[in-house]
């Protein structure tokens, strides 16, 4: 079975659980930015939790299938239409052979997840079907004309238990390894400020705008390993939260690290929206 993409929207990529364990070779981990939403999509179809889904950036995807298949959209609530009929968000829907699935622009949030029963079955690269947008390891980004193979599935979807989605709130932060590069109280300043989400934010990092964080040490930090959720502060003092496609090493000091369970929110913040931090 194959999905035929007519329009990928602004950016659509294939994502599974990523390829952790290769940072020492310079390979980003990749994987869905909103992991709970991607997991929910697979659960609603009874897929293997490791099945690959499509990550849509501001919707805009249009595709057909050469055979009937169950599909579901989770994450940012974008309108779902199948051959002109409105369908539900976070609900398994039948896409008949030849019908056109259209995902509109979400009313809020940024990233939606489209799962298909059986999972997107593109060829894995280094053990994962995720596309990383920093080094472009993995399958190519989805384009108009892309043909995406779908794995085998059986019968109607049998949803796994579907827990309540996590609630949004301030991003909890732990002190980072280089907090001593900043003025005393820099972590408190981070937590006392409402930051604007910068337009250059992407799968690599959430770029924040606000009063610059003051460094007390100048000079260069020797490049060192970076973790998911690291709040890195370049010389301009404006923090960047490292997301799934972050470079495995970096040379700017890390003031704080975002609690992993809160990172999904970074996937859904739009440029111009505000974000707050609080101590974990």
């Amino acid at each position, binding site marked *: 079975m194959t999905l035929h993409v007519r329009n990928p929207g602004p950016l659509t990529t294939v994502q599974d659980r990523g390829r952790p364990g290769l*940072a020492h*070779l310079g390979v980003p981990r990749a994987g869905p930015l909103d992991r709970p939403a991607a997991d929910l999509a697979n659960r609603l179809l009874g897929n293997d939790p490791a099945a690959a889904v499509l990550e849509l950036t501001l919707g805009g995807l249009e595709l057909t299938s050469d055979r009937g298949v169950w599909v579901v959209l989770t994450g940012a609530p974008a309108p779902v239409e199948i051959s002109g009929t409105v369908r539900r968000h976070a609900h398994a829907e039948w896409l008949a052979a030849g019908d056109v699935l259209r995902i509109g622009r979400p009313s809020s949030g940024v990233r939606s997840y489209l799962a298909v029963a059986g999972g997107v079955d593109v060829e894995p690269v280094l053990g994962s079907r995720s596309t990383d947008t920093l*080094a472009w*390891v993995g399958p190519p980004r989805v384009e108009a004309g892309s043909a995406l193979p779908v794995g085998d599935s059986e019968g109607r979807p049998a949803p796994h238990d579907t827990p309540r989605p996590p609630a949004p709130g301030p991003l909890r932060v732990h002190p980072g*390894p280089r907090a001593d590069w900043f003025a005393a109280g820099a972590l408190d300043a981070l937590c006392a400020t409402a930051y604007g989400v910068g337009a250059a934010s992407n799968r690599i990092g959430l770029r924040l705008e606000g009063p610059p964080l003051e460094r007390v040490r100048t000079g260069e930090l020797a490049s060192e390993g970076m*973790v998911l959720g690291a709040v890195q502060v370049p010389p301009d003092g404006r923090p960047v939260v490292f997301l799934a496609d972050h470079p495995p090493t970096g040379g700017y000091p890390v003031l704080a*690290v975002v609690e992993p369970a809160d990172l999904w929110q970074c996937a859904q913040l739009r440029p111009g929206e505000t974000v707050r931090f609080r101590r974990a």
Partner: protein
Amino acid sequence: MRLRPVGPHALLAEVGDARSALGLALWARTAGLGVLEVVPAAETVLFDGVDDPDRLRERLAGWSGEPPAVSRGPVEVPVTYDGDDLDFVADRWGTDVAGVVERHTATGFVSSFCGFAPGFAYLAGLDEQWAVPRLDTPRSRVPVGAVALAGSWCGVYPTASPGGWRVIGRTDVALWDATRAEPALLAPGTPVRFVRA
């Protein structure tokens, strides 16, 4: 060794230099520490995906500080020495182009760590006295296979990319191939010799 917490599931070990970092990272990979990532860098090793940071601290205390064990012969990388910065490097080293080639091919390098791009290895071996500064303005495109120097590091560009290193030559060897069992030719710990193509 100083250990700094990096959030709830990672520790950063500061060991002072790249040689110690490589030694610790190679030991850690064989020691069964139960971590997802072991990432050596210029002065540190990051341990990420750590279930039990206290247990890891105990295990790391058992590292003897031994230098990196190089267990195999060097990977040979044939180079055509025709880079745009050859004359600059020759000038810095107080020699001519032939002198640069001589020193570069006579040096035993070892891959200390990867970064910047998949398969881009920071190769140690040049003495600090031969360190060269980076370009003030990076080139917008350095071709795949470019062999270049920055500080006392040597590197080979696995893909075409912007770059500020001083290019002395080029190789046809594939530094990175995601379809290989070992995708990076010069993974940390790999000894390297450059030879004239």
